[in-house]
């Protein structure tokens, strides 16, 4: 049983409360609502449950994955789950009682610090649900800050991010306008220049973009700022080991899906929403933040701070309704970044870069397949196949390979286009097996 009460306990407790049964404690519930029929499966012992879950897990097929599109398979050092899985971290609540939660609070402070260093930004929050909701919250903040309603978004945001952005903003008076790409798979700068105006709250750019290509962010940043608009950058945190950081090109907000930093994919959740900003926007940031304080003896201590922005204080006037975030995923990320350090992060980013370029080079030698290399890319790129991408995916699945993301599902004219990713997890053998399988199509 889940409850520890013995019959004797129950008897004594009921007597202390002054009732003869628990049912007497339920007098506020109308009797006709009480104890409805409930049809649930029979209870399993832990042993049976284990076997049951193992058999269900076996229905998932292990594929060598070349899929990215927002969730990336990376190596997770053993120390990451070993440390974050400690019950003292895992089973604590939000650190409301700071004196008894210094461990959690310090890890969040270290997370914020590592993220600011990596992104070259001034402030980072304790986390958001995922990259998409962090992006939506950044856009809403940009609207509040500028008092402008029009938001220019790159058409090369992840399509699922665009959908979330639409959901979060369309009741809030935000008008989303898409900026178009060139054939190279990056934004068309002259066209973008014409779109940005004094009505633009912010320009949202993905670096790398949905198709894997790196944008001319410095130029985009300049164009946005010239018109008094903010720049919101959505980045891949691993790429920042080699690619210029959003702070270096003047991003006002930079957000990311932090899953690649030490968190498993888990079918897309939990993710880790990373939200950073320039210092000037600190009080417009939604969500928890940890700061340094002093205890009454002058000793350094950590607390949740600037809570006057948050829902439990401001209620309907809060910057957001966010309460629970993804603290444990942020813990994984800070442990990961601490283990890797600046050199390790650079190494893993370089490895991604090299494996993806090796894969691109090999695919481009397969007859009938071509790779778009008109713009620089990090660990993901577009392959044009001689047949619909869906067919390639089906065929390679038979070989135990997840071939990539079918771009045909986002755009009819891209039916033959496949978005392919290689992280450091893909060995040279994996890459060879992939191209061999393509050759048979």
């Amino acid at each position, binding site marked *: 049983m889940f409850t520890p009460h013995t019959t004797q306990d129950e008897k004594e407790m009921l007597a202390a409360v002054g009732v003869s049964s628990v049912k007497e404690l339920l007098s506020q519930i109308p009797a006709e609502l009480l104890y409805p029929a409930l049809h649930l499966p029979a209870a399993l012992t832990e042993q049976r449950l284990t076997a049951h879950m193992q058999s269900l897990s076996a229905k998932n097929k292990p594929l060598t994955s070349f899929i990215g599109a927002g969730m990336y398979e990376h190596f997770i050092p053993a120390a990451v789950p070993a440390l974050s899985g400690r019950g003292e971290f895992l089973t604590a*609540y*939000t650190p409301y009682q700071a004196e008894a939660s210094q461990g959690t609070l310090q890890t969040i402070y270290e997370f914020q610090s590592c993220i600011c260093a990596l992104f070259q930004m001034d402030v980072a929050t304790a986390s958001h649900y995922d990259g998409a909701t962090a992006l939506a919250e950044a856009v809403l903040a940009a609207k509040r800050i500028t008092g402008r309603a029009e938001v220019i978004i790159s058409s090369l945001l992840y399509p699922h991010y665009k959908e979330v952005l639409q959901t979060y903003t369309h*009741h809030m008076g935000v008008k989303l306008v898409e900026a178009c790409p060139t054939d190279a798979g990056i934004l068309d700068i002259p066209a973008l220049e014409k779109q940005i105006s004094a009505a633009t709250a912010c320009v949202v750019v993905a670096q790398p973009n949905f198709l894997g290509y790196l944008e001319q962010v410095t130029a985009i940043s300049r164009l946005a700022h010239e018109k008094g608009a903010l720049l919101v950058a959505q980045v891949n945190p691993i790429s920042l080991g080699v690619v210029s950081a959003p702070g270096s090109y003047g991003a006002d907000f930079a957000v990311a899906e932090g899953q690649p930093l030490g968190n498993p994919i888990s079918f897309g959740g939990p993710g880790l929403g990373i939200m950073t900003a320039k210092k000037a926007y600190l009080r417009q940031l939604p969500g928890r933040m940890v700061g340094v304080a002093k205890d009454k003896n002058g000793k350094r201590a950590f607390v949740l701070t600037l809570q006057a922005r948050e829902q439990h204080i401001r209620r309907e006037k809060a910057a957001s309704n966010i309460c629970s975030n993804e603290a444990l995923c942020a813990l994984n990320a800070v442990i990961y970044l601490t283990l890797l350090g600046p050199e390790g992060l650079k190494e893993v980013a370089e490895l991604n870069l090299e494996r993806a370029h090796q894969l691109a080079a090999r695919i481009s030698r397969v007859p009938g397949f071509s790779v778009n290399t008109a713009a620089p890319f990090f660990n993901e790129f577009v392959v044009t196949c001689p047949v619909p991408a869906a067919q390639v995916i089906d065929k390679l699945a038979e070989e135990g390979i997840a071939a990539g993301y079918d771009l045909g599902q986002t755009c009819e004219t891209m039916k033959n286009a496949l978005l392919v990713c290689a992280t450091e997890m893909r060995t040279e053998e994996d890459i060879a097996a992939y191209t061999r399988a393509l050759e048979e199509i």
Partner: protein
Amino acid sequence: MENLLSIEKSRSGRRGVRFEKTKQPATAYLPDDLLRTDKPRLPEMSEFDTVRHFTRLSQLNYSLDGQFYPLGSCTMKYNPKAYDKLSALEPFTRAHPFAPESAVQGTLQILYELQEMLKEITGLAAFTLQPAAGAHGELTGILTVRAYHDAHKNNMRTEVIVPDTAHGTNPATANMAGYTVVNIKSAPDGCVDKAVLQEALSDRTAAVMLTVPNTVGLFEKDIREIAAMVHKAGALLYMDGANFNALIGLAKPADFGVDVMHLNLHKTFAAPHGGGGPGSGPVGAAAHVAPFLPKPLVEKKGDVYTLRGKMPQSLGKMKAFYGNIAVALRGYCYLRQFDAGTLKNIAEKAILNANYVRAKLQGKFNAFFDVNCMHECVLSIDPSKMNGVHTADVAKRLLDYGFYAPTIYFPLIVPEAMMVEPTETESKEMLDAFVGALEKIYEEIFSNPQLVHDAPHNQPVSRIDEVSAARQPNLKW
């Protein structure tokens, strides 16, 4: 000794994890203007130093595994270890949301069956697992309401009514959905004042958000009449199900007339809180509202599970992917380990434990509402009769006795509130020890009030000046 930050332990050149070297430098692949030129200021530590560092930090925490954690409204019940292990099975953690569906049938089957079980428990017609947390579930629910009204051309419905006992997330949620919040005062008995509600209801009302049981630990006794009033006004009834642990197996929200609600898998369904998340806030809807839930839902077509069903009236997406799966897997484990009878027993024991604490403390720390409670009891103190000791002091002193503190200063309608939710997994011995600690603190308030004022005394740090942090924020190294 101060606890050093990792960056203060960092030594240039020290390394934890290494990766293979590449054949060529990044300059071979990327143009110079896109390359990072600085070295980010991350700690440089060995793996062993890192392990020591975070192990030490973990020891500076109270946690459910270590301490009684009677945090009201948070349902800190035991989180079974088996669920951690089973949710981390590699085929689950490696599953990619864009993998061919034939390769992720195990995950999809679990999600489908969880949706079905949540439907059965609540009596509602459909459930989505997409929301990442309770507040995210609220936003999902209220946007579902909005999509429903939009489809019915109810454009004049611009208000959401929220009682003053609600969690802060409720009014913040309504605001985030573009609604105007109408706050209403509760009746002296802690429940909704029907006359006040009737006054507030109009053809501008989109929804009423009710927490059941409410935040003072009481079941809304007039729930069915309230639902009828809400529906008569053409509005929908939203139920915040954060406190559903007290009702599971005892009553079904659909029977009350609830149209939309959220549950918290990290509360009621025994998933751990992780120091503040990830959570999971599934949202259920009655049949007339179900088509407006976020897309997609897991559907079963023959023997195949799929997320590809069409939902033309859906509000859209709330999150990049379908929910916090690792949390949902734990919720599924919970519902497979305990049958209907056990769930009922769980709710009953949660209620018994809260009432036991309430009864035992009577005369020293009284419940604000002198009635039987559900899953939690809300105590209140009067500092003018307690040597100037406030709730915060009692909370900090409890830490010295080895207990985490209850939720304090909430709900707002109770002065100096202390919200105690023991949950069903605490034994009578633990509750007696907790009551004993509070009784000792009560004595101390009169014998040595300074001791209580100055608490905590044995924590890693003493009382923190929280205002000092906000004045000149130091948010990073």
